């Protein structure tokens, strides 16, 4: 069972516009969420995170929104730049077990067109 889902395998956006990447989860016990960015032949790089006690966290051009009732989070990139072209993974942890095990989605490939 896929507890963290990224239903859009790919997304193309024009440079300067907003990129919105979506992620859904099924386990209501998850209490910490993260976004990682991955370039080819590199490991995932931490981008931004959010705790379940918040509904928004912002870091420069990157903002993560959390809707707990819908079990949905999104990553907004404004403005999008060609260097943002990468695969983006959302991850969730918690589940009440205290293990802080990250469960990853399958990723969304973002392409920012110049």
């Amino acid at each position, binding site marked *: 069972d896929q507890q963290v889902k990224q239903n859009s395998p790919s997304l193309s956006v024009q440079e300067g516009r907003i990129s919105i990447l979506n992620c859904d989860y099924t386990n209501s016990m998850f209490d910490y969420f993260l976004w990682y960015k991955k370039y080819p*032949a590199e490991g995932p790089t*931490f981008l931004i995170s959010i705790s379940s006690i918040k509904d928004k966290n912002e870091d420069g051009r990157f903002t993560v929104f959390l809707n707990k009732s819908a079990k949905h989070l999104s990553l907004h990139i404004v403005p999008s730049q060609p260097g943002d072209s990468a695969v983006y993974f959302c991850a969730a942890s918690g589940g009440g077990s205290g293990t802080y095990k990250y469960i990853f989605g399958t990723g969304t490939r973002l392409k920012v067109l110049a």
Partner: protein
Amino acid sequence: EAGVVQSPRYKIIEKKQPVAFWCNPISGHNTLYWYLQNLGQGPELLIRYENEEAVDDSQLPKDRFSAERLKGVDSTLKIQPAELGDSAVYLCASSFTHQETQYFGPGTRLLVL
């Protein structure tokens, strides 16, 4: 500050051969993780270490996979014997504690022929 270091970056072996991957975590990070990433999928946790102790190895296929972190710093993940289905990227990550953000190394891409 140096990031997580992994070697080798690429490895090609014949099936049934043994293979080992090495990871050096970020200095001061007590928690170390090994993940498996198949093509088109997100990383999946294989094992988590707190210092020298493997505290979560429930996803590690113990018939052929083994791992160690003898001095609580570097770690080695071994597969013996390798099977065709083991072809994947093996990622190492570390964090100060299991409650802190995990930082990933570049991974080792394994191809089993």
